[in-house]
């Protein structure tokens, strides 16, 4: 069974590679390359997989999931300029893809192998018209059990 918890945060970012000209960055990242940055209302959907515990009837305590998401993602990222204030985005371009991977990695440590609830998917909406899904990297031992 799957359960999904939603969270929101607002942050600014800019997507550009330091070695490239403004024009080259625009070709790769479009309007997101604006050197002054810009912001989004991100929506995050965290999906866990597991079977309901016979005692509690729950796969995972949703309140606990909300706290984990708040502590690891929302609190450090909400109302921040990701490139300047949230590592590793001082070195890593904060594309939606990289942000989803970073969020997965931050959450994955809370759902170790062998526990009944496993992290299954991270969906990050950058806007209503763009979202990315990430379910871990099989090579890094953080893959979802699919």
């Amino acid at each position, binding site marked *: 069974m799957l359960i999904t918890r939603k969270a929101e945060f607002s942050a600014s970012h800019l997507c550009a590679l330091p070695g490239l000209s403004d024009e080259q960055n625009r070709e790769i*990242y479009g309007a997101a390359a604006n050197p002054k940055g810009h912001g989004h209302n991100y929506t995050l959907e965290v999906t866990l997989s597991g079977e309901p515990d016979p005692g509690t009837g729950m796969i995972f305590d949703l309140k606990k999931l909300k706290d984990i998401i708040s502590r690891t993602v929302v609190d450090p990222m909400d109302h921040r300029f990701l490139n300047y204030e949230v590592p590793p985005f001082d070195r890593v371009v904060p594309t939606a*893809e*990289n942000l989803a991977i970073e969020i997965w990695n931050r959450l994955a440590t809370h759902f170790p192998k062998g526990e009944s609830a496993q992290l299954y998917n991270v969906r990050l909406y950058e806007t209503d018209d763009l979202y*990315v899904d990430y379910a871990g990297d099989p090579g890094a031992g953080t893959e979802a059990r699919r």
Partner: protein
Amino acid sequence: MIRVTRRFRFSASHRLHSNRFTDAENSELYGKCNNPFGHGHDYVLDIGVLGPVEPATGLAVNLQALDRLVQECVLNDFEHRYLNEEIEEFAEAIPTSENIVLAIEERLRRRWHSIFPGDWPRLENMRLQETKRNRFELTT
């Protein structure tokens, strides 16, 4: 691997009617969608693309390129058109959402490798929402 889903919109009209059936049969089969003057929808098209994140750029797909491709292959032709009479695929085929998805897939596939020449990113799925209450999904 990461999946990037990009949403596009177009508004178009259509009429569901097959020459293989009588008027009464068409009316029975397609209901309101058989109205002789046609009718329209605000379609929502989600294109799902799968690929590894390129380490240098942090991108699984160049969105500028994807947007241009969908604009040129689909939106330029479909936006504010009467599909039955203005889109060549529907001279024969009936513009049900099923057939619209298949036509869009074919159009994207024809040009995909000229825009994305490598193994990745791949066109993975397409979802067409005709109204808020129905949607059609194709995994390629």
